[in-house]
C-alpha cells in the first residue's frame, strides 16, 4: 500500500488526469448550457469546436494574425455558427421530439466534417505554440493544461453566476421548463434562444482555443472527444454545472489511470462502462436535484 502512495509516476498520472479533466470540463460547459439547460441536443457540438480550432489555426498560421486576436475571432465565429445552427436547422423542428434535434444536428456533424476535409484536407494541423512546463519535484506539468484547468474553473463560475443572478439567465432556465408558457410571461423565446445559442457556441469556441493549444487539428477530431463530452453532461445531471464539472474529472481519471495501468483505450472503455452502469443506478445523473 505504501508503495502505491509513494509512487511518483502514479501521482503524476493522477494530477495529469486532473488537468485533462479541466479540459473536458471546459468542453462540456457549452454543451451543458445547450443540452442541459434548454434541452436542445447539438450532437455536432464537438464539430463546432473543431471549426473553432480550424478558424484559429487558419488565422494564426497561414495568415499571421496575432494569437489572441485569432482566438477571439475563433470564439466569435463559433458563437455565430451556434446562432446559425439554431435558427436554420433546429428551429423548424424545435417543437417535435428532442430525438429529431439530435438527428438533424447529426446531419450537420457530417456536413461540418466533410467541409473541413474539403477545405483543410485530412492533414494534421498544429499551432506550434509551446508554453513550457512547470516542474514540481520530478513531475512535469505543461502550462497549457494548467491554463485550461484554470480557465474552466473561471468559466464554470461565471456561467453559474450568469444563470442564477441575471434576468436573462433566469429566463434561460425558465424556458427549459415550459417552452409554451414563457412567451406569456413577456420573454421573447427567440431572443432567449439567440442568447443561449451564441453563448453555447462561444463556450465551444473557448474550448477550441485551449484544445488548439493542446492537440493537432484534423477533421475527425470531433468524433474522438464528442461522445465523451456528451456522456459527461448526462452523467453530471443535465443542467447541473457543478455535476458536469465533477463528472469531467471522474472521466478524466478513469482515462488517465486506465492509461497508466494498461492502455488508454481500456481507460476509455472503463469510463464508458461506468457511464452505462451509472445511468441505471442514477438515471437522473450523479448530482441531480429534483427538477
Amino acid at each position, binding site marked *: 500500500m505504501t508503495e502505491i502512495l509513494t509512487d511518483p509516476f502514479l501521482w503524476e498520472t493522477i494530477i495529469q488526469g486532473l488537468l485533462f479533466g479541466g479540459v473536458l470540463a471546459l468542453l462540456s460547459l457549452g454543451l451543458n448550457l445547450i443540452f442541459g439547460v434548454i434541452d436542445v441536443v447539438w450532437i455536432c457540438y464537438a464539430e463546432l469546436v473543431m471549426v473553432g480550432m480550424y478558424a484559429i489555426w487558419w488565422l494564426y498560421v497561414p495568415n499571421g494574425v496575432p494569437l489572441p486576436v485569432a482566438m477571439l475571432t475563433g470564439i466569435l465565429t463559433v458563437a455565430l455558427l451556434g446562432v446559425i445552427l439554431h435558427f436554420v*436547422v433546429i428551429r423548424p423542428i424545435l417543437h417535435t*421530439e428532442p430525438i429529431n434535434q439530435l438527428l438533424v444536428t447529426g446531419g450537420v456533424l*457530417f456536413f461540418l466534417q466533410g*467541409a473541413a476535409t474539403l477545405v483543410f484536407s485530412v492533414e494534421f494541423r498544429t499551432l506550434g505554440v509551446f508554453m513550457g512546463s512547470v516542474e514540481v519535484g520530478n513531475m512535469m506539468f505543461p502550462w497549457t493544461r494548467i491554463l485550461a484547468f484554470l480557465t474552466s474553473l473561471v468559466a464554470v463560475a461565471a456561467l453559474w453566476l450568469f444563470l442564477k443572478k441575471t434576468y436573462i439567465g433566469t429566463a434561460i432556465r425558465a424556458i427549459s421548463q415550459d417552452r409554451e408558457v414563457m412567451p406569456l410571461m413577456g420573454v421573447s423565446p427567440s431572443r432567449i434562444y439567440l442568447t443561449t445559442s451564441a453563448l453555447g457556441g462561444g463556450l465551444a469556441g473557448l474550448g477550441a482555443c485551449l484544445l488548439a493549444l493542446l492537440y493537432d487539428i484534423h477533421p475527425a477530431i470531433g468524433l474522438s472527444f464528442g461522445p465523451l463530452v456528451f456522456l459527461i453532461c448526462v452523467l453530471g445531471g443535465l443542467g447541473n454545472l457543478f455535476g458536469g464539472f465533477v463528472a469531467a474529472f471522474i472521466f478524466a481519471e478513469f482515462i488517465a489511470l486506465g492509461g497508466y495501468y494498461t492502455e488508454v483505450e481500456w481507460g476509455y*472503455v472503463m469510463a464508458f462502462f461506468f457511464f452505462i452502469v451509472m445511468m441505471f443506478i442514477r438515471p437522473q445523473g450523479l448530482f441531480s436535484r429534483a427538477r
Partner: protein
Amino acid sequence: MNSLTSNSLQAIGLAALLAAPFVIANDYLLHIAIMMLLWGLIYTGWAIMGRFGLVSLGHGALVGIGAYGTTMLWNHAGITPWIGIPVAVAVAVAVGLAIGFPCFRFRITGHYFALVTLALAEVTRLMIVAMRDWTGGSLGVTPNSVLSPDNPVSLYALQFSSRHVWFYIILACWVVGLIIWRAVDRSMIRYGLEAASEQEDAAASLGVRVTRIKLIVTAISAAICSFGGALYGQYQLYINPETVSGIAISLQIVFAAIAGGMFVKLGPTVGAIITLLLAETLRTTVGHDVHGLDVMVYGIMLVLFIIYMPRGVVGTLAALFDSRRDAFDAPTRNKAKKRPAGSARTPA
C-alpha cells in the same frame, strides 16, 4: 393497392433481382448491388426497432460483434462460420438485451436512449482497438482465407470467390429480413409498441407488456444487424473497427434508414440504395482529389430529410399513392406540433 397487384409486383421485383446477375456483367456494379442488399438488410434490422421510437445509436456495436465475433472464432480457434455466426449473433442479442432491459425498465427513452446506446457503440469500438493482439487494432483484420485459384469455393469456411454466389446468398438473407419485418408488422407487438411509443403508461395500463415486447424487437433487431455484420466480414474478407463499429457507423445506419423511410418495409433498403449511389456517384464523378464533398452533400441531405421529409422517400411516396393509410401509419416521428408528453425521461 389491393393484395393481388401487390403480390404480383413483389413477384416481378424478386424475379428481376434473381435475373440481375445475368444482366449485370460488370463486376463493380454487381459489388454495388451486393452492398446495397447487405446494408439494406442491416438498415432493415435497425428500423425494426427504430420505427417504434427506439432510436438506437448503438447498432454499430452489434454489427461489430457479428463481424468480429465470427472472424475471431475462425482465425484464432478455427471454428467454422456455420457455428461462429450463430455464436456471434447470440452474443450480440445478449448484449442488446443487457443494455435494453435496464433502459426499458427505467424508461430511458428518446434522446437519452440514443446517448446510452451511443456509449455502447463506442465501448465496442474501443475494445476492438484495445484488444489489438487479437483483432489487429485499428488496422483491421482479414479472415484467414482458404481460397486459391484451384479452390474458389469453400462451404466450410463460408468463403466464395464468385460475386454471383454472394449475390444470391445476400439476396436470400435480405428477403428473409423483409419477411421478418412483415411478421413484426402484422403482429400484436407492433400495435403494442406503437401505443407505448405514444403513451407508455396508458399502454401498460391496457395490458401491454411494454418492457417485454421492447425486448423482443431489440433481440430481433440485434440478431439481424449482427448477422449482417458477420456476412459483411465474410464477403469483404476485411473488417476494421471504423467500418463495422463505433459512432460513425451507428449514425450511418440511422440516417440511411431515415432517408429511405423507416416506417415502411422497403424504406431502409431504398435508404441503402440512395446513400450508396450518392457516395459512388460523387466518388466517380468528382474523383479522389476532392475529399469530403460526398460527406458534405450527405449531411445536407440528412438535414433536409429530417426537416421536410421525416417519413423518408418511400414513406412519402407511399403516403401520396395510398391515401387510405390510417392513423396507425403515422407513428411517433410525425408527432409534429404536438408537445412531448411530460419529460422525456421519467426517473424511476
